[in-house]
């Protein structure tokens, strides 16, 4: 079995005539926390969305847990996989969105327990107990009955994290989880993410929070114009960036 939980090889992604990912090699080890940084429009979101196949790729391959996602290999060629199989594989890849995307038509408890009930066949009582345990973990035990519209952004995002965790994914993808938050709520969400990282969760985090990256990341990956231009441990990337674009990015974010 591969040492990588996520293995993206020579990935190319086009939106019409625009190449958005250009021969991207991106691997994540089990238990690793990778922070993905790069200027706006550099392809960070797109890369995350390719990993759980919310976007098709035009070249290369992406495997999660050693299994190709979105495609099946048939006689040496890649053919699109059935929707059912893709859905099944996505259960192992949790995603936390910039805009939370909690289900508006149900309360917090149902938001968290819906997918385990429907997809893993967890009994309702058990799913509810798990959901309450997750609410404890993200520090919102008293919000079980609330509807998303009644919660602050920070609370919604913490519940979105709980919802993703309820499926017991092998890896969690975060797409700028604090960018849509008022500044005073950023800390509570980063706190939950820090605890998760300590617990050994495999995470890929797109963020502009350099403090978080420094503290929590095992590895920082820098993207620019659809390419990975630099990768390394946080100290190396932040203290001695090699690529001029990384330097430009860091001085823009840090000053």
């Amino acid at each position, binding site marked *: 079995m591969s040492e990588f939980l996520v293995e993206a090889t020579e990935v190319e992604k086009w939106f019409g005539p625009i190449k958005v990912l250009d021969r991207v090699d991106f691997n994540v080890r089990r238990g690793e926390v990778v922070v993905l940084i790069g200027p706006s429009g550099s392809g960070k979101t797109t890369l995350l969305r390719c990993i759980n196949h919310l976007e098709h790729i035009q070249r290369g391959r992406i495997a999660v847990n050693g299994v190709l996602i979105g495609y099946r290999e048939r006689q040496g060629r890649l053919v699109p996989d059935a929707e059912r199989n893709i859905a099944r594989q996505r259960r192992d890849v949790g995603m936390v969105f910039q805009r939370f*995307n909690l289900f*508006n038509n149900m309360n917090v408890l149902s938001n968290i327990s819906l997918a385990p009930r*429907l997809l893993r066949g967890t009994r309702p009582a058990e799913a509810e107990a798990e959901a309450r345990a997750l609410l404890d973990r993200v520090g919102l035990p008293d919000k079980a009955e609330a509807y998303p519209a009644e919660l602050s952004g920070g609370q919604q995002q913490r519940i979105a994290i709980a919802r993703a965790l309820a499926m017991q994914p092998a890896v969690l993808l975060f797409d700028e989880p604090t960018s849509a938050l008022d500044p005073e709520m950023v800390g509570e969400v980063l706190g939950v993410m820090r605890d998760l990282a300590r617990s050994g969760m495999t995470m890929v985090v797109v963020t502009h929070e350099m403090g978080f990256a420094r503290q929590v990341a095992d590895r920082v990956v820098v993207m620019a114009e659809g390419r990975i231009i630099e990768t390394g441990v946080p100290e190396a990337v932040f203290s001695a960036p090699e690529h001029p674009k990384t330097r430009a990015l860091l001085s823009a974010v840090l000053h």
Partner: protein
Amino acid sequence: MHFDWPYFWAQLLTPSLAFLNGLGLTVVMAVSAQLLGFVFGLILALGRLSTNRVARGAAGAYIWVVRGTPLLVQIVFIYNGLAAAGILDFHDLHVLGVTFAGNLQAGILALAINEAAYMAEIYRAGISAVDRGQFEAAKALGMPPSMMMRHVVLPQAFRIILLPIGNQFNIMLKNTTLVSVIGVSEMLLVTETINSATFRTFELYSVVAIYFLLLTSLWNLFMAWVERHFALSRPNSATPQAALVLQE
């Protein structure tokens, strides 16, 4: 001008049994055609939004034809046209001692077929008005499309299209009068029959108009109640206005 007030009041307050039967038929037709239209319409809308090209094309063609031809023509076509061509004859059905007349079946079917096309467009507008993020969150959790639709998208779409649905049933109640053309004794045909014997046209048509106004008003009151207690009581970021804009 002569208006026979005593006759008018008698017809309004103590309608004949035939008229009450007509009222019953009007309601039965409207309700059953609307319910069928709901179901057909949802299937059509899912077809329209499907990734399958054949399903999309077939649903699109259906909606195009039905919305592009008059309901009156569709009613006559289905009852008389299909029979004349030897394709389909509507026979009376006898179920549990109740006779379900052939022309009534055809009338309900025609209304339902017509309604489905309009409902499909309303569903489609409602589904399109649901935030893309809701679809993506469901997909990212590993839900297959059918599950995503059933548990996440449609409940939100329904709330958005509540108002247009209410509107559709209001139209449906009135459209049942067209079925008089194939001899279903709903309120209008009963009125015409009485009129041909009495020639109190002004009075009789005033009465039938008032009865329709009563039906639609009751329905409006009900919808207002539904909206207060169902749509607005629970917080929801979905905007009901979006569907109104999309509806023609």
